[in-house]
């Protein structure tokens, strides 16, 4: 079999497995991991009207994982009537973050300025994180829509991190670590992260050392959170496809090894 046709078979097989997962109605029974359960319990036990901050620190390319995590957390926060300050320390996350916030806010009938605000993007993320420890309005004098921040009822009740119960960094890189290093260590701010799966192991040491409250990671984390919340979405849909794709990859690895050892034995026993 030529290399090209082998490659085509592998790609076509993967595409077929993923499409099959989407057209079947199998429901995976996912049990929440301790990290996701901790995140869920945290929001569940917060008093109403508590102010939290969500930072959209990611690129558009990580949306398949980031979107279900973000939507699940936003829905839970709005259902619990928490008040949310959104911002972005990654240019690409700005418009995406605003779209997510307004979309979920509309679902729950939340009012801009009173229940949530979106402050937009600020370059030089370390300066921004440190600056907000002194005064959030000084770092963001205007919101994303151009309104003076001090004209928004929610922002009039917030001065710095002292009024923010938790910062949630939705990250596909190390922005969350910078929140830990500068807001967490510098201002004793509690930090939680929503992460792509690739970043989970990089953040584990911060959980172990108590610097990071918890993480919700990858499609699996999103699916677990959706199940706890009681509204299945893209996380659950994607998780089935991901699980089937993993089984497919494992089978390919096994076949590859069998073929390799067989051909090696044939070579060794040859003339």
């Amino acid at each position: 079999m030529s290399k090209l046709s082998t490659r085509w078979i592998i790609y076509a097989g993967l595409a077929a497995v993923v499409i099959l997962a989407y057209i079947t109605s199998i429901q995976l029974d996912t049990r929440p991991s301790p990290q996701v359960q901790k995140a869920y319990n945290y929001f569940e036990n917060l008093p109403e009207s508590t102010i939290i901050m969500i930072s959209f620190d990611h690129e558009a390319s990580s949306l398949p994982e980031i979107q279900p995590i973000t939507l699940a957390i936003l829905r839970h926060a709005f259902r619990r009537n928490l008040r949310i300050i959104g911002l972005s320390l990654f240019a690409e996350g700005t418009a995406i973050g605003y779209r997510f916030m307004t979309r979920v806010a509309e679902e729950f009938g939340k009012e801009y300025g009173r229940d949530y605000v979106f402050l937009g993007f600020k370059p030089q993320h370390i300066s921004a994180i440190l600056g907000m420890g002194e005064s959030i309005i000084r770092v963001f004098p205007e919101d994303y829509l151009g309104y003076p921040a001090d004209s928004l009822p929610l922002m009039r009740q917030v001065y710095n991190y002292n009024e923010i119960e938790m910062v949630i960094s939705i990250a596909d890189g190390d922005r969350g670590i910078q929140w830990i290093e500068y807001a967490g260590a510098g201002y004793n701010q509690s930090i939680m992260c929503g992460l792509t799966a690739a970043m989970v192991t990089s953040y584990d040491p911060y959980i172990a050392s108590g610097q990071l409250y918890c993480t919700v990671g990858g499609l699996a984390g999103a699916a677990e959170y959706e199940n706890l919340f009681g509204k299945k979405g893209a996380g659950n849909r994607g998780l089935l496809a991901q699980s089937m794709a993993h089984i497919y990859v494992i089978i390919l690895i096994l076949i590859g090894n069998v073929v390799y050892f067989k051909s090696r034995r044939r070579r060794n026993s040859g003339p």
Partner: protein
Amino acid sequence: MDIGIIIAGLLTLAIYTFLYRDNPIYRAAEHWLIGLTIGYAMVVFWQTTLVDLLILPLFAGGKYILVVPLILGLLMFSRFSGRFSWLSRLPIAFMIGTGAGVAIPAMLYARTLKQLSSSVAPLIAEDGGFNIEVVVVAVGLLTTLAYFYFSREHKGAMGKMAKVGTYFLMIFFGATFGYTVMSRMSTFIGRIDFLLTDFLRLLG
């Protein structure tokens, strides 16, 4: 159908033509992606950095102290001149100095001191049980450090410790690689979801 979805769907298919081989359709989509990303970033940075932090406060707000960062920023362009390129060292020195000053204490605390202190924990848990995790962390920490200790030859006890350290490293790399595969698979799944649901409307 929304024009944005049609464009996104066609561009997704264009990118996947690379699975066959490198071709002009793939390259056009790739160039478009790079151009859009840079263009978007430039517009955002122009507004949020130059306009909001420099031009408006300096010329409309009368904050004349901002002339200093303006001059420092302009000095960066001296690198294009062979004769005056040494001037660019001034803003670079300023950036490195302030950057290191801000970053070193924070990183030392979060990445070293806190990690060290959390690796020293009591063997007996609060409920009276034996805390096996502490032993695993201690063994992992010491043996991994032994692997990266090159001032002594990895022989005898030192060699055995370093060998155990490699197993801990392999477990870490395996877990990280596994998560990375999950992430990349998620990206593909996300595109398939988009193609089936939004672009082709085959699923509700």
